[in-house]
């Protein structure tokens, strides 16, 4: 496939295999070896670059997706003669040891400072949380970023004619020896027509798919790219609901003031997914269809009465998120159906929402237990509209029906309510034992988290 993109300010026409990782294109085809590979599965950030100004992990970006985009790597950040202030700050503050993580950390730092000129220490740490460094303990790195904050980057005078995108170049041209056929339609109707022919693997952010390919999953023959479909990338608000396009990213959710104001549990879950690069890439639809039992958005979407909108050439079908999973990693989706959106009704006045995640660490973490909750107090001071949906405890999300039923209609200040809920919630799930946590831990923590939610009302 022939693609066109801008790499470090230079227009490049490249002949690539469509699913070749951007990381390999940069390192092997373009000789830009500053971008490193530390894991190949999105975990370490050594391969982080900017694509149209957003931080992404190049090991998870297929080549076809950068067609028409603008890429910045560490080589384009600055040189010794004309450095980015961050590069100088890393040198001075002692933020470099072995240096293998350094290019990725610099790209993450630059993305952070571009978005916020004077971040707090907590914001710096969150901004760099997707970039593992084994040498420094991060202290000097945080110091370096702090000292470079507010300093002008040398790239500011650069050509900004495509601030949010590369050249306008139409579609990439397929080649005869492409191992994979990629469809990059411009409209939903075209996409559905592709789905109709069956067997195309849908790719949105690619964070799950590219990790699976790296782990050995055979490459598909056909890929349908939905990351640029305007119909799927929007957040649409109406008086009664919000419609989240399937290709909306976590970052899009966090940038929406409506979402953060009215669906705070959703925003909280998005904030706790992965780290910035994963948040920039991963999508709502991907989280739903990938159907990992530990997915963070899924329990929230279920607790908020979300409805999955499935589209095919035959029309639309709506399935409540709670009923969307038939079993372990088995979403209720026909091969010809695309998840187009999720609809969330506007919460009633006074609804309190919460999302709790007990994970393996404070970022880049898969949940051991997660829990989405909502409820409100009615005019008589009783709990109502109680929703408790847990993830990562079983093969699919589970609604804590017994606990919900018990809470419904009770006064929040009823003595012993929290203890009763703790007992019920711990008892009603068939928790699993795996490499991340024991079943006992999952049960106990679930009980504790439900109690934590109950206490909000006291």
């Amino acid at each position: 496939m022939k693609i066109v993109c801008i790499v470090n300010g230079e227009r490049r026409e490249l002949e690539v295999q469509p699913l070749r990782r951007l990381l390999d294109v940069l390192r092997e085809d373009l000789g830009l070896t500053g971008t490193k590979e530390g894991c190949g599965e999105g975990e370490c950030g050594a391969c982080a670059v900017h694509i149209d100004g957003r931080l992404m992990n190049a090991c998870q970006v297929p080549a076809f997706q950068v067609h028409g985009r603008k890429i910045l790597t560490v080589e384009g950040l600055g040189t010794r003669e004309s450095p980015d202030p961050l590069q100088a700050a890393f040198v001075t503050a002692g933020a470099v040891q072995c240096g293998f993580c350094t290019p990725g950390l610099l790209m993450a730092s630059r993305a952070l400072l571009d978005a916020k000129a004077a971040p707090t220490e907590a914001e710096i740490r969150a901004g760099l949380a997707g970039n593992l460094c084994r040498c420094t303990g991060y202290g000097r790195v945080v110091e370096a970023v702090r000292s470079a904050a507010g300093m002008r980057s040398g790239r500011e005078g650069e050509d900004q004619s495509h601030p949010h995108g590369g050249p306008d170049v139409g579609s990439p041209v397929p080649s005869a020896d492409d191992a994979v056929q990629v469809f990059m339609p411009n409209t939903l109707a075209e996409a559905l027509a592709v789905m109709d022919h069956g067997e195309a693997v849908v790719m949105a952010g690619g964070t799950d798919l590219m990790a699976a390919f790296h782990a050995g999953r055979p490459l598909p023959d056909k890929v349908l790219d939905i990351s640029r479909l305007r119909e799927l990338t929007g957040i649409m608000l109406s008086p009664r609901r919000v419609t989240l396009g399937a290709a909306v990213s976590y970052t899009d959710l966090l940038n929406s003031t409506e979402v953060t104001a009215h669906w705070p549990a959703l925003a909280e879950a998005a904030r706790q997914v992965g780290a910035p690069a994963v948040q920039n890439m991963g999508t709502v639809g991907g989280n739903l269809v990938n159907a990992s039992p530990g997915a963070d958005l899924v329990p929230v979407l279920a607790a908020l009465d979300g409805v999955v909108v499935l589209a095919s050439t035959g029309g639309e079908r709506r399935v409540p998120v709670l009923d969307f999973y038939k079993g372990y990693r088995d979403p209720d989706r026909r091969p010809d159906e695309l998840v187009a959106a999720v609809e969330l009704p506007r919460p009633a006045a006074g609804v309190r929402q919460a999302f709790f995640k007990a994970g393996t660490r404070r970022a880049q973490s898969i949940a051991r237990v997660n829990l989405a909750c909502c409820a409100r107090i009615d005019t008589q001071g009783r709990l109502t509209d109680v929703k408790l949906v847990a993830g990562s405890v079983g093969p699919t999300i589970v609604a804590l029906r017994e606990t919900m039923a018990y809470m419904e209609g009770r006064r929040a200040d009823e003595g012993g309510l929290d203890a009763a809920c703790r007992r019920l919630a711990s008892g009603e799930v068939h928790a699993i034992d795996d490499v991340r946590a024991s079943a006992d831990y999952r049960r106990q923590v679930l009980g504790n988290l439900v109690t934590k939610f109950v206490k909000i009302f006291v």
Partner: protein
Amino acid sequence: MKVVGKPLERRDAWDKVTGRTRFLADIPLGEAWYGGVLRSQVARGNLAGIARDAGFDWSQVVVITAADLPGPNTVAMIREDLPLLADGEVSFVGQALALVAAPDRATLAAALAALRPDITPSPAVLSMEEALRGETVIWGEDNVIADYTIAPDDMAAFEAAMATADRIIEGTYRTGYQEHIYLEPQGVVADPRPDGGVEILGSLQCPYYVLNALARGLGLERDRLVVRQSPTGGAFGGKEDYPSVLAMQAAVLALKSGRQVAMLYERHEDIIASTKRHPSRTRHRTAIAEDGSLLAADIDVVLDAGAFTTLSPVVLSRAILHAAGSYNIPLVRIRGRAVATNTPPNGAFRGFGVPQSIFAAERHMDRIARELGVEPLALRRQLVLERGDVLPHGQVLGEGNAAGALVLERAVTLSGYEKRRGELAAANAAAAERGDPVRHGIGVSLVHHGAGFTGDGEDRIATVVRVRGEADGTVTVLCSSVEMGQGAETVLPAIAAEALDLPLEAVRYHQPDTAAVPDSGPTVASRTTMVVGKVLVQACDDLVRRARAHGADARAAWSAQAAAGEALVGEGRYEPDPDIRWDQEHHHGDAYPGYAWMATVVEAAVDTDTLEIHPERVTAVAEIGTAINPVLCVGQVEGGMVQSLAWGYLEEVKLDGGRYLNDRLATYIIPTCLDAPRFEVELAAEPSPRGAYGAKGLGELPMNGGAPALAAAIEHALGIAPDTIPMTPDRLLEQLQARAQEARP
């Protein structure tokens, strides 16, 4: 001093921040073939043969099994028990069965998939306890790879104290695996030479270890072997022993195929195949007198070596030499054993056995304090080793080697430990009252670390360093100590610059290459700055002496000589110190030339709803002799500390039937920026007479102190005593439940 002690910029920093540094995988390969390994999927068994799929075209690849090896089928380390390829017997999951080289990655993968090993499984030994029971013997006569004892001079007095003490306080402490996760995975490239030899370029710590392993395993003369180090993206001990394995694999493939062969592990294979920190179990029995004083201690350390020897005996040696901790106990006996199990061999990791044994020692101090009803800090103050005290192995702590009290008091003051201990306890009580789930705790640890090789190890290594005068007036440092992030490329030139009174820019450092640099030993054991640095100073003096023979101005003289094609080379050789006595058999005498000290205070939070731990604030005071470059020193302390803390609560390897379950970065969890604490680090200096400009070793020290201080903080926060690490939420929950059970009538 003009250079030493200044916070000068790292010399490799600019290349690293601009992406110009070429790590091994960044170097274009051209025509190279790719090498790969067929690995065992069973922990123990008998390999009858390896069938080759008839459907695959074997003419396009090179395959090597044990029968095809040119040399003695061994990767020589301390012993020669580790075969390069399994021959008949298979001893661990991941063991190499066959090697394949192919022109590209896809063909390599296809070839590996077309090989079918025929292994009949047999009962495996999967834990230290099973190995010690010895019902199934998998190594030697009793599964014991090494068994050492440090005995008190007066054995009768020791036995009497243990038998007649008022009470014995006992504890058992366990530590888990740790994977290095150097960010750059392992890799080497092997090039066959026209003379039948081979050249290796790789990410490694010890060029001459690899050279030795090649000479032995290939049966080749050293003059046909060259080992070069590529810029190394972190190592932490993980590139001390394992590169010998990797280099042997690549070398035999290169020799058989006649082509350049690249063996570049990706992360998953790296985790499966490379060595880890030894899991340990340590028992303490301490005899206490009626007045609460400590009379004697009996300590038993067991390390899980995995299936073969690798470096385990030396790791064990260092572990027991630090097992009594940083305290003065009159009579101490320490036994250590490294036992074999059917798990992948464990190896070197920053700290080299000391983090394990010192974790136990520190936790046991906390237990004694608890049982005696005294403050942990008070007990440490009372027992801390001082100058003139005698260590269990008979070494008298001399000048510059006894900074325990100094660092402890300074860390206590800086952190406000005593005040914070009270404040946090009060805050916890208030939080419990409010129903707030988060508890805080503060804990302290005091640790030391012997720098350089153990005992007469440095005599045997006999470090050589050279310094060559160049025509432009600069000099080049020639030694085999590698830059791997720790700063050798900056610190060694700084020492030379100081010795020669040159600006730092006038000193170059030659990338380690056995064809060009002498053997200054491996880059391990916190020895580079202290030991190699000191020999470097001698080399500089020697250069000046030689130059002065040609003219009064040494620099002008060496320049002129070099310009005339007669470059002058100064040489330094390690000279055994006549005052050092060491009895290897009994582990008795002057074990280390210098001891560095560190006190660590950790404040941590625990969420009692989820049992997640977060170390929030760390105060560390390290006495490391002269800090040649303070910025680099602080970086070492912070980085090592985060590794130590994470080993204590976050990093875990679970096994199932001898197979690692946490074998990718998605499941083997290391700290992110959000998990790391805020630091306050202070350096103290009691210059050591035995190190360059008074320097001591620093690299490993911080790895010792974090985990025990964190465990103490958790004890303070929750009132349970964690004796096993990592302190995972599962473990904390178990302990809390056990306590609740006990509290029930």
